[in-house]
């Protein structure tokens, strides 16, 4: 890929997010433990719980299951609570996403269903076929895709692409935030999104074309 001028770098944030999820909490004695814990819990609930729905959305897209999504979000929330004392970032939502993502990958490993991410996923294969669909009605076709078809299209994306696409299109994160959450460079975010959109377009055209549009 030619070096492109992306709007901003994402290094500092990615470092912060990675650090925070691993931070242990240190017990501080000689203070009223109960009230300290109450205050801490209160701050955690105020900062993190507003993003519970977003966390669930990401987990649900990653796991593709309601029950598993709840488990992953619960694991992530408890980890977030544990590491909350060290959290000083300005973006609790992205922080929670990163923890959800880690919890999901741990869950994936535990279930020894690693084949989904173990699938060879070559970042270097770019969408060379861009524009190969020929002239014509693809834009109109795409514009008419309905919610059900889009949902199926998203669900059919390979995991790394699905993750990037959900964070970008549904949760509205910037490239920089996605890079921080997924721990990947901005250029990789860009190429994953491009591939995801290409695949989604192909999916929608292939499946939408079968049904006559009103």
């Amino acid at each position, binding site marked *: 890929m030619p070096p492109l001028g992306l709007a901003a770098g994402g290094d500092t944030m990615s470092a912060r997010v990675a650090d925070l999820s691993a931070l242990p909490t240190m017990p501080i004695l000689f203070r009223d433990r109960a009230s300290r814990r109450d205050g801490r819990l209160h701050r955690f609930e105020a900062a993190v719980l507003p993003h519970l729905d977003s966390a669930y*959305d990401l987990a649900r897209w990653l796991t593709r299951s309601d029950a598993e999504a709840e488990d992953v979000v619960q694991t992530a*929330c408890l980890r977030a609570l544990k590491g909350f004392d060290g959290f000083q970032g300005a973006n609790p939502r992205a922080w929670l996403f990163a923890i959800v993502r880690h919890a999901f990958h741990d869950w994936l490993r535990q279930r020894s269903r690693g084949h989904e991410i173990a699938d060879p996923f070559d970042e270097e294969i*770019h969408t060379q076929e861009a524009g190969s669909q020929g002239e014509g009605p693809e834009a109109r076709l795409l514009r008419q895709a309905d919610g059900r078809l889009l949902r199926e299209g998203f669900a059919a994306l390979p995991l790394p692409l699905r993750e990037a696409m959900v964070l970008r299109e549904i949760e509205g994160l910037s490239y920089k935030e996605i890079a921080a959450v997924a721990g990947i460079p901005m250029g990789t975010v860009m190429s994953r999104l491009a591939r995801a959109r290409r695949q989604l*377009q192909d999916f929608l055209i292939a499946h939408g074309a079968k049904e006559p549009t009103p």
Partner: protein
Amino acid sequence: MNATSCPRTAPEVAAYLDGELDLAHAVAFERHLEECPACARELAAQEALRGAIQDHAAELRFHPTPAQTERLRRAVRQAGGPAEVPAFRQWRQLSAIAALLLVAVTSWSLGRLWPPRPAAGLAEEVVAGHVRSLLAGHPADVASTDRHTVKPWFTGKLDYAPAVIDLAGQGFPLIGGRLDYLGHHPVAGLVYRSDRHVISLYTWPAAYTEDRAGPVPEAATRQGFHLRHWTRNGMAYWAVSDVEEDRLSRFARLLAGS
């Protein structure tokens, strides 16, 4: 430009559409769009896709059910609430910390009662280093009276930067520097002259040898060599020479007080 493909391809189109290209690249890309039907079509397709996704954003977003939300909130409250840590665990933590504290205090007191005396052995090493350099007829690895030559010479040879002070005006001209190995560390040796006598000044971070010497030079004599030893700004200093004791005292005071 081929009508069906373009090397700029989808990633740049996507970044443009997402508003993630910086201004210069966005302007360049817009200029490129005017003459590249492949990119223009790709942009139209991606815009259409984006439009469709935005139209159905509500359908694409998953929400936990109220029951799920309640379970998740309860799990957090239980894990973060005071009831979760049972008293015996607090006691365990407390006793573990108390035990650590006891060990720390004990070892600190033992250290005070029986302090290691690195200075005794180090004085011998310092004298030996000085004598070795004289025997070899090679007091300095870098021979220069210019401290701006001597100081950079140590760069890359040591993990600290020794202070190199010129005392030519006070009758102790700098004649060079050398590397030595004392107290199990490579250290800087600065070489000064006082009339016909050579003074070696060793310096290293005091932490290397857990040096507890004060800022006032302490005197010692070994095998007829006089020594002065002090610390300053976290660095340990050892001056050694066969020069008269008064001269060495003056030399040490100049450096320790300068």
